[in-house]
């Protein structure tokens, strides 16, 4: 068969498309972990948190988080009984070494609030990335592709929870990965592993046998900044109204 110039012109685009799909390759087979079988979140049981800072230290060790930056941190709230709008919040070095002891306050209350990336299903941080370097994975974890990130910090500004930072050495966005390298191996996150009271619990919302479902049904649970409609998947049990 003779290929005329006309035939060639028709064939070339088709060939280019075919070549592209060859280059894309087949999705990597992962025998022990199916991304579509999970939808990760976390439960934070505020009445159980003792402010020991184990989670902060474990996160820094597990993920090589530089000093002064935090993928998770603990805040201590002090709220006067009537002054919900003006809580006094401290978090010395992210709560890494715990908190100074306080005496009972007859006119107010103290409590701890651990914070981390809320792994939002409709996250503002992924929407603003101009290069597609941050995304929500098929199993519901917001991740940063640090080879693709150019460090513009749009996402750092977009996160309503202040959960992102620019890594001082790598000059790219960094954040909680929900210990993706652990949860895909069947382990829990470093922070949940070391939490002595079970105040933090990893939750797989797609697993019908996960205790999170029974907990959500029987407790008053809230997410942070629900008015922002971010689809946050870090659920706080007995969250005080003063928490921002």
């Amino acid at each position: 068969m003779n290929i005329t110039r006309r035939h060639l012109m028709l064939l070339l685009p088709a060939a280019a498309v075919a070549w592209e799909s060859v280059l894309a390759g087949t999705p990597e087979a992962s025998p022990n972990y199916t991304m579509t079988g999970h939808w990760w979140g976390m439960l934070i049981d505020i009445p159980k948190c003792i402010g020991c800072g184990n989670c902060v230290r474990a996160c820094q060790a597990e993920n090589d988080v530089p000093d002064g930056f935090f993928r998770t941190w603990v805040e201590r709230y002090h709220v006067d009984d009537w002054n919900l709008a003006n809580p006094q919040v401290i978090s010395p070095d992210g709560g890494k070494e715990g908190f100074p002891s306080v005496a009972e306050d007859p006119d107010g209350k103290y409590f701890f609030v651990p914070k981390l990336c809320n792994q939002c299903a409709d996250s503002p941080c992924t929407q603003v990335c101009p290069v597609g370097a941050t995304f929500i994975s098929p199993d519901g974890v917001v991740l940063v592709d640090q080879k693709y990130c150019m460090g513009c910090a749009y996402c750092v500004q977009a996160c309503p929870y202040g959960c992102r930072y620019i890594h001082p050495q790598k000059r790219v966005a960094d954040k909680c990965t929900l210990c993706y390298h652990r949860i895909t191996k069947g382990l829990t996150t470093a922070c949940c592993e070391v939490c002595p009271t079970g105040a933090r619990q990893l939750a797989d919302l797609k697993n019908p046998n996960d205790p999170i479902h029974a907990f959500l049904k029987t407790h008053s649970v809230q997410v942070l900044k629900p008015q922002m409609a971010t689809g946050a998947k870090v659920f706080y049990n007995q969250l005080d109204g003063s928490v921002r």
Partner: protein
Amino acid sequence: MSIFRDAGHLFRLAGVYLAGTLTFLVIRAAVVPHSFGQYGHYRGAAIAEIAAKPLHYAGHQTCEICHSDIARTKAAGMHAHVNCEACHGPLAKHAADPSIDPGKPDVATLCVRCHAASAARPKSFPQVDAEQHAGGVPCNTCHQPHNPAIAAAGGSK
């Protein structure tokens, strides 16, 4: 008839467009990472790269393979749900090579991190003023950390 008279230059124009499209596709195939768009508007291979990062915390399941005796002691007491590395720190290296000494945790800083009395802590959580409670005697003189009830200790360990 007259509308097709000078149609030749339209075909040439179409050719230019086609060549442009082809050039675009070739450059795109060359510079866009192969797995971009595999799952969405991002590099699909990044997920596997992040999942391949090394572990520092081995996880209590791994510890309990060798230290099943400690696991049994622990399960009987108040520290049943405190995992090994909560106090001992990240020990994945020790788990991979048991000859690496994990070191002993320092009770002077460790116990009070959780148990120093503070009104900010939940009321039901056991708390002490360490100075008043022990007067500088190390906690593990009376409390065996793996099962801290004094009746369970029978001396120190």
